[in-house]
């Protein structure tokens, strides 16, 4: 296991990158802790696979360094870095049995056969593959094959990190859930440094200790699932995490409050330097307070519709020309005519050029 350090890391597929958009991965300096589970989250083309391949050593970055436990491994092969990687589609060795597949990485490293057997059986047990050990891998279902791919990553006890590149894409939803829990359990048991790439926020939030959200080549926030939810540092994080995403409204500044179409909304921070840029006000649907007109500080809104989601209600509200979503508890009454909302200052976030003003 290793601490992973990115030192001014960046990558561009252009030979002479000149503008930020030329970069598949923009400048990044960070330290990832040993033994933690990380998720790289973002839509396709956001640079998460580029970053993963740089960590694994399949790609040499055009700028900066990668350090494992303080050791520069930027130009080392995956083997030299001693990492394991699980790919999007199952990679199995067709002609081998499940047992031989799992033993392959160990046998290649000349691990004594007794240890190979012990590890293989341990991993097979953890992944429910024990019954299939003697079967030829080619004959199994896609999810069993993907379990073998994962098993080959987990079988080496000495790896610096295990990388998962959207490993559950081919798995059906129910098995997906089980496998994710399995991975989580294995992580908690062995304290392996795991890095998990996905575009599915549920997968990322349930799997990882820390989630790195990527957007257009930049890592916009690295934080715990709770931090991402409660304090999105970038409008993209607010939009991408949560369902529905954060409510965003363009605004201007007026001293200690924000002005949305002339309506003053109080802010937590009283002294915001007005240095220019485009300002937006954001609040998660979960934090919008629905009340009746007349309540102190409430802004009248029009209720456009209410969707009952079973465990909660989602109200669509209109405030001026803006449409807001508010998540309400099942038993909360929605006033038909005199609805109003309040913005709790703690959850009302101000963004300048998409970045959180703090």
């Amino acid at each position: 296991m290793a601490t992973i350090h990115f030192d001014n890391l960046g990558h561009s597929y252009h030979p002479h990158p000149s503008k930020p958009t030329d970069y598949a991965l923009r400048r990044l300096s960070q330290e990832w802790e040993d033994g933690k589970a990380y998720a790289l989250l973002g839509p396709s083309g956001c640079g998460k696979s580029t970053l993963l391949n740089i960590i694994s050593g399949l790609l040499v970055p055009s700028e900066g360094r990668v350090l494992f436990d303080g050791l520069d491994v930027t130009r080392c092969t995956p083997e030299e870095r001693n990492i394991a990687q699980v790919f999007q589609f199952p990679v199995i060795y067709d002609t081998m049995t499940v047992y031989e597949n799992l033993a392959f990485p160990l046998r290649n490293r000349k691990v004594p056969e007794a240890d190979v057997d012990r590890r293989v059986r341990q991993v097979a047990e953890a992944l429910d593959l024990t019954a299939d050990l003697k079967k030829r891998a080619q004959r199994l279902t896609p999810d069993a094959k993907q379990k073998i791919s994962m098993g080959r990553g987990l079988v080496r006890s000495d790896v610096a990190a295990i990388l998962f590149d959207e490993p559950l894409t081919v798995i059906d939803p129910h098995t997906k859930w089980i496998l994710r829990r399995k991975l989580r359990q294995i992580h908690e048991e062995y304290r392996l440094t795991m890095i998990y790439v996905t575009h599915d926020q549920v997968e990322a939030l349930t799997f990882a200790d820390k989630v790195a959200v990527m957007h257009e080549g930049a890592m916009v926030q690295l934080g715990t699932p709770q931090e991402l939810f409660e304090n999105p540092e970038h409008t993209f994080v607010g939009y991408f995490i949560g369902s529905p995403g954060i409510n965003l409204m363009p605004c201007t500044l007026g001293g200690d409050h924000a002005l949305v179409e002339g309506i003053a909304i109080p802010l937590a921070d009283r002294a915001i330097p007005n240095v220019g840029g485009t300002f937006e006000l954001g609040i998660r649907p979960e934090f919008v307070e629905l009340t009746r007109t007349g309540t102190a500080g409430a802004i009248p809104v029009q209720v456009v519709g209410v969707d009952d989601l079973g465990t909660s209600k989602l109200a669509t509200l209109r405030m001026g020309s803006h449409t807001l979503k508010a998540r309400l508890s099942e038993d909360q009454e929605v006033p038909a005519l005199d609805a109003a909302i309040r913005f709790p200052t703690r959850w009302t976030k101000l963004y300048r050029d998409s970045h959180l003003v703090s």
Partner: protein
Amino acid sequence: MDKVQDNRAWFLIVPVFVIVAFSAILPLMTVVNYSVQEIFGPGQTLFVGTEWFTTVLADTRLHDALVRQVIYSLAVLAIEIPLGIVIALGMPGGRSAKTSLTLVLLALPLLIPFNVVGTIWQIFGRGDIGLAGATFRALGINYNYTSNSIDAWVTVLVMDVWHWTSLVALLCYAGLQSIPPAFYQAAKIDGASKWAVFRYIQLPKMRGVLVIAVLLRFMDSFMIYTEPFVLTGGGPGNSTTFLSQYLTQMAVGQFDIGKAAAFSIIYFLIVLLFSFIFYTVIMRTGEGDKS
């Protein structure tokens, strides 16, 4: 699912039946017909049953030709398949000018007609004016395909390797190109050696195209006719007289239609049998347990 009865389906099948009947079944039946008769002249035939078959099976010249043929075909496979695989592994991948050039160069021999290949090598190997022949002579190597049967053999074999290894290489190349890059990356991460990558990824993924390559090369080489005929006419002696040439001598040269017909059928069955064996063996290898 319910089966739909519709007699119009016959319109789709009948043309194929007619074409296959005229191109394959009728000629084959004619041969079967000849093989059980003694033909004295037009309209003068005598039913002789299996007599031609017994005669053919007892023919020692045919035995010799068959042994020669089997050795030749096995030699062709033993050289061209591994060589083709090695060439395919060494070929540049991706879309580049280098790749295109390699593909064109490899495809060139395949475009040359059989008898032209024979003629090219006949001239190439001549001691007086051929580049290879003259070079051997200058180096003091005694090489003469018209008088030395081993030289003639080697020439026919080299000719075939030159002509057809490209086919195997191109087929294997196509097989290799279809392997997703993740397999190589995973193997790298698993610490697999080059040999292990070949043994556990490339070779299993090439199995499908290798079946085709082996069958094509086997059938083709088992029916070789033109090249040795152009080179030495089957000589020196009978050393490069393979089955099809012996058959032609029998049918066209001596006009032993009945005997030649019986021979053809046996020939056909041998090709069928060998192809079946190759196919089964390759498909079974790597399939392993049927559980």
